[in-house]
């Protein structure tokens, strides 16, 4: 097997892993996909070490003349995108069972990588629906639903705008949660039967790292300690940013609210 072909296989496998990791797949699924793709191309020994922030792959064909190829891919951002996970999963199944060439595989992966999320308008509408539903699931009433619906839409749109401007995730969470708390307090002060706690609870469900903390424990349970720690730290930092945002607004409201209203 030529060195060039081995390099192409390595690039293909790392790309598949990168797309999956960026879309928020589990560690074992990423490692499994990379290993399967390499083995399907006839590479004898494959070692993968994947973390949420990077993927390391080493290929070796075992012969004395063959050289060892290693690839390190840094992963910066990640955003949950289940369609990409599902498509790369399909891809690895077809790649390993049919005789698709490496070049064709690369084209398919390029196409998957270019996919965009649903339109922003649809996502904002859904985010507001989620905020409203959660505020009632946590014990709010119909008025809380309507208010959380409106405030949730605003907060989600704001978070999209801030992430478009490449603002750090800590500041983003802080600003969004502060806005949610501020509008919830105003709404609760002007409408008697609304409960600001329930509205805030509904709105911040859009940003809280519940899935991140559950996934981090799933990583721990499957033996990926480093990834578990990483995701746990991310979850805690996000939670701190949200609490700081809401905390600042509630504190200021306590101090100044009485004077203004």
């Amino acid at each position, binding site marked *: 097997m030529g060195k060039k072909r081995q390099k192409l296989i390595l690039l293909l496998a790392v790309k598949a892993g990168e797309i999956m990791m960026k879309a*928020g*797949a*589990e560690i074992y*699924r990423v490692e499994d996909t990379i290993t399967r793709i390499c083995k399907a191309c006839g590479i004898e020994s494959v070692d993968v070490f994947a973390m949420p922030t990077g993927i390391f792959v080493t290929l070796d064909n075992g012969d004395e003349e063959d050289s060892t190829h290693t690839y390190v891919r840094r992963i910066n951002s990640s955003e*949950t*995108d*289940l*369609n*990409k*996970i*599902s498509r790369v*999963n399909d891809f690895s199944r077809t790649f390993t069972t049919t005789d698709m060439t490496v070049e064709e595989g690369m084209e398919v992966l390029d196409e998957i990588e270019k996919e965009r*999320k*649903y339109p922003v308008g*649809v*996502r904002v509408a*859904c*985010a507001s*629906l*989620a905020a*409203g*539903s*959660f505020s*009632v*699931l*946590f014990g709010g009433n119909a008025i809380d639903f309507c208010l959380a619906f409106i405030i949730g839409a605003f907060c989600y749109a704001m978070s999209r705008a801030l992430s478009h401007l490449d603002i750090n995730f800590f500041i983003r969470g802080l600003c969004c949660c502060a806005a949610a708390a501020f509008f919830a307090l105003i709404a609760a002060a002007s409408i008697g039967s609304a409960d600001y706690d329930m509205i805030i*609870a509904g709105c*911040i*469900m859009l940003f*809280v*790292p*519940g*899935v991140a*903390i*559950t996934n*981090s*424990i*799933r990583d*721990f*349970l*499957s033996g990926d300690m480093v990834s578990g720690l990483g995701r746990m730290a991310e*979850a*805690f930092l996000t*939670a*701190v940013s*949200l*609490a*700081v945002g*809401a*905390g600042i607004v509630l504190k200021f409201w306590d101090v100044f609210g009485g004077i203004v209203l």
Partner: protein
Amino acid sequence: MIYLLTQFVLALFATLAFSVIFRVPVKKIPACMVVGALGWITYIIAVHYMSSPIAGCFAGACTVGLLSAICARVFKEASTVFIIPGILCLVPGYKIYSTMFELLREDVMGTAQTGLETLLMAGAIAVGLLVMGIVIGLVRILVKKAQAIATRQ
């Protein structure tokens, strides 16, 4: 009964919304909604009878894990596609926030209590999914063995 029905409908909505945000393929969104809503209903019933949110999370996660595995089989899809939206109603997102909020208010006892409960709930969900994964794996192996024996005879 009406209470359960409203909760079911709202959980359907919440899961629908997050399925769109997480970009589940359009054809699988209805299945995700049902998985998420049934998980939440299991949680409510379990909390009602066992009066512990941790046990509730475990029961809910078991339901989600089982249904996700079935859906994954039926739709020939990675089970993550159903698990992530499905556990969204159960995950202790608000609890993490209130833990940090109590920390900011310098309420150390409150922080410890809520924080521990958060970790245990997240752990219960993870263990529930893990247990279901193992059970389904065992069932699959047993079915294969049974088929092998049946074809031999």
